[in-house]
């Protein structure tokens, strides 16, 4: 793959001409006819960065408060316990099922699913108890169709939490290292590379906090079952991390390219230009993924609903953060720690 250095400053000039100031005359020999900028896209994102940071904090801070004070509604993967999903031929009401479960004296709780079946949760039970519970439900509520049984002991639950945290931390560190390495060839070397990597990491943490915060609020403040976090949720967090970094890399890659070809613009102007040049792509990509996720959310059934909701929130947040947070953070960082 050859280098990108053959991009002429004049071509970029055509894009930035409406910004005034740094206008460059297109070289008549290179472009046969001067091409007018077809769309006027001149949002000053960098200039209004504090507004966008504030917008993010409005969502993140309640989420952090909720996480700190109310924690999370844990799914069975993390909490441990026994979960039996069953439907009954006689279609008993929630209260009837709850009465039957209460009569077992095993501290069971009942949740009704949207599909007309019931989820009964107990503390971890052994094999004989699980069989006993099934027989008991059958005798109290009539013909029972057991769809799923999950028994998660405390050991495995603890390991799942540990492995999940480890995976998120390891992925974050690996992405920081990759970005620092990929961007250390911009003017400023490794220090600049870490500014790029660090900004991307902050944007990524933004998405992780939004997602976990919203789920903490959904699960604990609103007591919704969809707000429960489990291994699927971890999958969602890591996917969001991947997508968010995708978007951020595209912006940063454009900044890198523009830094190389345009000497006349200030860093802020280059960043703003790069955001404008890549925003369409970020929004279109996210839009297609959002469409796919919406399809899964609507038609994918109970199991995938929580996952697709998490991905929807995370990917919208990821697109927002890569446009309105990552690059502006880079500008802030560059101001605090000038490289030239």
């Amino acid at each position: 793959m050859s280098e990108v250095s053959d991009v002429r400053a004049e071509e970029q000039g055509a894009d930035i001409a409406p910004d005034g100031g740094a206008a460059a005359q297109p070289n008549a020999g290179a472009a046969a006819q001067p091409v007018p900028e077809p769309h006027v896209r001149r949002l000053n994102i960098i200039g209004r960065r504090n507004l966008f940071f504030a917008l993010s904090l409005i969502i993140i801070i309640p989420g952090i408060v909720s996480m700190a004070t109310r924690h999370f509604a844990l799914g069975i993967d993390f909490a441990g316990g026994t979960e039996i999903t069953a439907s009954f031929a006689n279609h008993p009401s929630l209260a009837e099922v709850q009465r039957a479960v209460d009569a077992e004296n095993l501290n069971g709780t009942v949740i009704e699913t949207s599909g007309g079946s019931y989820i009964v949760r107990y503390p971890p039970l052994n094999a004989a108890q699980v069989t006993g519970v099934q027989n008991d439900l059958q005798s109290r509520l009539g013909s029972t169709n057991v769809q799923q049984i999950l028994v998660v002991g405390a050991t495995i639950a603890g390991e799942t939490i540990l492995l999940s945290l480890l995976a998120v931390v390891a992925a974050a560190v690996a992405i920081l290292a990759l970005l620092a390495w990929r961007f250390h060839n911009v003017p400023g070397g490794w220090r600049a590379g870490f500014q790029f990597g660090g900004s991307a990491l902050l944007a990524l943490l933004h998405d992780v906090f939004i997602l976990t915060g919203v789920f903490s609020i959904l699960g604990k403040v609103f007591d919704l079952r969809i707000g429960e976090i489990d291994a699927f949720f971890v999958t969602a967090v890591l996917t969001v991390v991947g997508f968010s970094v995708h978007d951020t890399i595209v912006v940063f890659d454009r900044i890198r390219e523009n830094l190389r070809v345009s000497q006349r613009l200030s860093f802020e102007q280059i960043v703003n230009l790069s955001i404008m040049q890549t925003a369409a792509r970020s929004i279109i990509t996210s839009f297609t993924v959002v469409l796919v996720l919406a399809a899964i959310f609507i038609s994918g059934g109970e199991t995938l609903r929580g996952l697709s909701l998490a991905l929807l929130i995370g990917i919208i947040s990821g697109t927002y953060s890569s446009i309105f947070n990552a690059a502006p953070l880079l500008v802030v960082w560059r101001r605090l720690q000038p490289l030239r």
Partner: protein
Amino acid sequence: MQLVLSWPIRLFVVGVLVFSLFVDGAGYVYRIANHYPLTGNVAGLPPNFGGWQLYFHRGLDLAGGTHIDYQLTNFPAGQNRADVQQRTIAVINKRVNSLGVSEPEIRGAGSSNDRITVDLAGVNAAQAQKTIGAVSKLVYTKWVPDSKVTNGPEAGYKPALTGLTGDDISSATATIDSTGTSWVVNIQFTSAGATKFDNLTRENVNACPGDTTTSLTANCAQRHLAIWLDMTQADIDHWDDASYVAKVASPYDAACLASQTPNTVCGKLLTDPITREEIAGGQAQISGSFTQQSANDLATGINSGSLPVDLVALDVTQVSATLGAESVKLSLAAGLLGLAIVVLFMIIYYRVPGLLASLALLFYAGAVLAVFKVLPVTLTLAGITGFILSVGMAVDANVLIFERFKEEVRAGRTITAAVDAAVRRAWPAIRDSNTSTFITCVILGFIGPSAVKGFAITLGIGVAASLISSIIVTHNLLAIVLTAGGFRRPALLGVDRVRSV
């Protein structure tokens, strides 16, 4: 760029396409040609290429069945843990075979060889745990005189524990003997077991010496060594109770043993052969009037008795087949719907390039599904989600190229030059973003919780394939189609104007 557009690369793409079509579609061609229904089991499918079968391996959440993670405890002292784990896996395998499970998956896990993961399709958890966890211990007994004993294998004698147990046996196999006519069971002892067995057989022979085939006096009760499952000292203490002995000394009853309570009395006898001679070296052979079936039964019995450790179930998952089928249907529908939406959107927004990208996307989906079959990748619900998401990633690379293509055309490049520049300049972003996702997948694949691993594998494969599909396939299609003059109209390309050459 010249390399990507060269003929060897194009031939490679065509080769991959043909191969994927074959892997994905050959089964359906076979069904249609033979007037079989398009779904369900059909004779001759899945095709078998020398033991290599091409079909989608469904995880338990899709196929229905039981998954159990076992913790191994009470490791026998002084033995290699990895060996003990392997032996336990072999025993579980044998026990599970009796359930008639197709493709049971029993894998070792755990950082210190102290875990075993069991996946059984079509079996419910209670049945699986009963069969696997049945703690049957194999014991050898010798016979000691007791005038109060009136029945059992050796009247006038009661059994005595010898200290030789299933722990001392490394394997038992049914086989045809050296004459090639009759079935025998070969037992291989561990080195400790070999010594104990040598001593026992010497005692046997010394009790009433002679050739057992010719001398009547050589055939005494003390010359027998009986093999039992779960025989305990408590059983032996009951040996003067004739009805008790009649029950215990009947052939071992696996189902009864699996569900025994302190009050049930199950048949526990495996066999009570006579010792012909002292056996040193740890290899014994049990012969008799075995059929292939009875020899296999005895070997399985001996093996299944020797579970060398205790098993504790850490987690159990049971999914019914109907729920699994429902999940397959829903995720398939979601995947197809998602793909259709993406294709529609791409064509409306990007016109001809969008259509080409959709073709590349279909190529990509076909190739990835073929990879899933060939490797094979076990597909779970999370795995299918990973695949659907990788479609989104594959689209992303195309969008990057097309947005750049529009810019280049706007900047006044010719179509051919614009395609080339677009791919070249979009590449660093595509490469870096896919690398970051791929790294995430690798990390998840290694340290993620098990539910997440399936997701990481399919997404990782998808990301790698999307890189190839977007850079090579889309680029080639654009280069080939857009050189034809008819497609250069701005309306077809989704741009405002096109510079003529």
